[in-house]
């Protein structure tokens, strides 16, 4: 059981990192949303598995929130938004796909090196989980940096949150307060983002953040 527990959580967490890479190079809006939904789905599987092996029933709540909000509701809402705004064409990226992927690999190597050496004394399961979680967080940051589009940045931000939830559920016995609050904050964050996207649409004809950048800096 011990080795099975390790293998399955390793598989799921590794799958999340792989999906993060897919988010990184995806250049079509709908595909991006689909992969994000899959990301959230794999995350909820991983949480369920943690609930089983840690014998922590409260984690099922976290898994359900993750599944319902992040794998179903939010991608659907974003899809409608994309349709309404008619922005389903390709997404502009700041850096090319090749260099982005290389950077991503570098970040994953960095986080493995950092976490595995820092947590030498801990349980191997927690070590692996934390190393993967940090990789997902860093890949999400990279995605936010390389996307010009507001929807792309939002997805990047939510994949960071997924990484954090993975870390929080991997750490044994972390109090429930935190998990629920994390889920809540994602919800709130989404509402905020949603409002912003609609407001931006009211004022401009684009959600391309670069269009907003014209106003950056000092007003003359």
């Amino acid at each position, binding site marked *: 059981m011990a080795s099975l527990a390790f293998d399955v959580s390793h598989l799921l967490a590794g799958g999340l990192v792989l999906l993060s890479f897919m988010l990184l190079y995806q250049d079509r809006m709908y595909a991006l949303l689909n992969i994000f939904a899959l990301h959230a789905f794999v995350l909820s599987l991983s949480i369920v598995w943690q609930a089983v092996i840690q014998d922590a029933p409260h984690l099922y709540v976290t898994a359900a929130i993750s599944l319902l909000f992040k794998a179903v509701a939010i991608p659907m809402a974003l899809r409608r938004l994309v349709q309404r705004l008619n922005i389903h064409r390709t997404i502009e990226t700041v850096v090319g796909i090749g260099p982005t992927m290389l950077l991503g690999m570098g970040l994953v190597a960095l986080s493995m090196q950092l976490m595995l050496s820092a947590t030498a004394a801990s349980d191997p399961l927690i070590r692996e989980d*934390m190393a993967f979680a940090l990789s997902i967080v860093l890949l*999400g940051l990279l995605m936010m940096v390389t996307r010009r589009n507001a929807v792309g940045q939002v997805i990047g931000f939510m994949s960071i949150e997924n990484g*954090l939830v993975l870390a929080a559920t991997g750490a*044994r016995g972390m109090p429930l307060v935190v998990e629920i609050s994390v889920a809540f904050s994602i919800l709130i964050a989404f509402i*905020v983002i949603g409002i912003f996207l609609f407001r931006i649409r009211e004022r401009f004809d684009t959600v391309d953040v670069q269009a907003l950048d014209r106003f950056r800096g*000092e007003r*003359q």
Partner: protein
Amino acid sequence: MSVPPFDPVTAVLAIPLGAAAILALLPGYRLASRINVAAAALTFLAALALLEARPTPGRFFFVDDLNIVFVVLSTFVGFTTSMFSAGYIAHELDTGRLTPVYLRFYHAMYQILMFAMNLALLANVIGLMWVAVELATLTTVLMVGVYRTHEALEAAWKYFILGSVGIALALFGTILVYMTAQPVVGQGLDAMMWTVLMRQAAGFDATLLNLAFVFLFLGYGTKVGLVPLHAWLPDAHAEGPTPISAVLSGLLLNVALYAILRFKMLLAANAEAIAPGPLMMTLGLVSLVFAAFMLYRRRDIKRFFAYSSIEHMGIIVFAFGVGGPLANFAGLLHMTMHSLTKSAIFFVVGHITRIKGTQKITEITGLTESHPMLGWLLIAGVAAIAGLPPSGIFVSEFLLVSSTFYQQKLLALVLVFGLLVALGALVMRLAGFAFGKPVGGMEPSRMSYAPIFLHLGFVFVAGIYQPAAFVAWLRHVAVLLG
């Protein structure tokens, strides 16, 4: 049914929350702004009650010598800002920049922000503190975007993106702290409580704790506005309503700083962990020098003072990085004085931009001639923030420079250099604001000057005379900080 005894901790949290609910439902700005002031005043009184009868630490909330300084300061500035806001907002309604619906939203958000800040300061659970800081971030994002102009939306979006990245890094650090504590303290809530963590920190795994601190410092450092991560701060200050600029500079930056200080204490309690000092000193000095130079190139008055906030947060982080009783004392004093002075300056700036109808520095001149009271108050405020005697900031900067000379001579040179560069920029701009030929709007200001007098009065009195009890208390906290 018996009446539950008066509990200041509950009051400090429940009053803003209740007021937010009422204000969200109330139409009519006159009554709403009065309720806003009354709620802020009651919260301040409840915070003062904490000084008298300090409750025993509970599972979720606790009060100790460190956070009580922050709570009293933030409820006080929250109260005076609500007074300023009442006058300011009435005018925004007249000119149509805000509609009554947005005004309702604004007042409710103001109280939720107060609640979130008090929650972050009083929380005993590191996860709860994180949630509160996130809530404070979200409310300020909405407030910054409340005018819904191009610039305001861009500022809010930028603030939101950078703020959430910071908050995400801080959460990762928080989880790492839990992982560090869990083998020693055991699973569950205990491994996230300050009171327990501080007692048992000596047994924690030092490597993991170091890593956690780096994440926490970068995460909460984004909210403090330290330089590589500061990009959101000038925009958010310039585009939001002026009372929010005052609250951001005076309070929210302090709350993030408080989080960093707590985790620094945790590291200090563990003998094997790295000293966080060099990291804090480096980023503090970089912020100071960078912001001091950036002051010369500003064209917008609110942006100008926002960069001055970055500069001062740099000084404060540097002071706590140097460490030792004297530098910590200087840091605490500087933090208090900066909060009071900077919010007073934003009150004055609020009056000025309202009269002149612009934020452009070139269009604000000759204030001492057209509006003597405002002009001289601005001179007093800028003199205080520049660290000229007899302001309280002069005292704290003097203490910091002398203690740095004692410990790190070379760094003291950089510190003095940064302070002088900033002084030059402030004096140069002040000459333009205060003297010369007045242009633009000439109508007198109808708003109350009371909050400005109150703040600047404290700052200048503190430069000359500080009550013994106040000094003893700051000294005690400075020792606690290590």
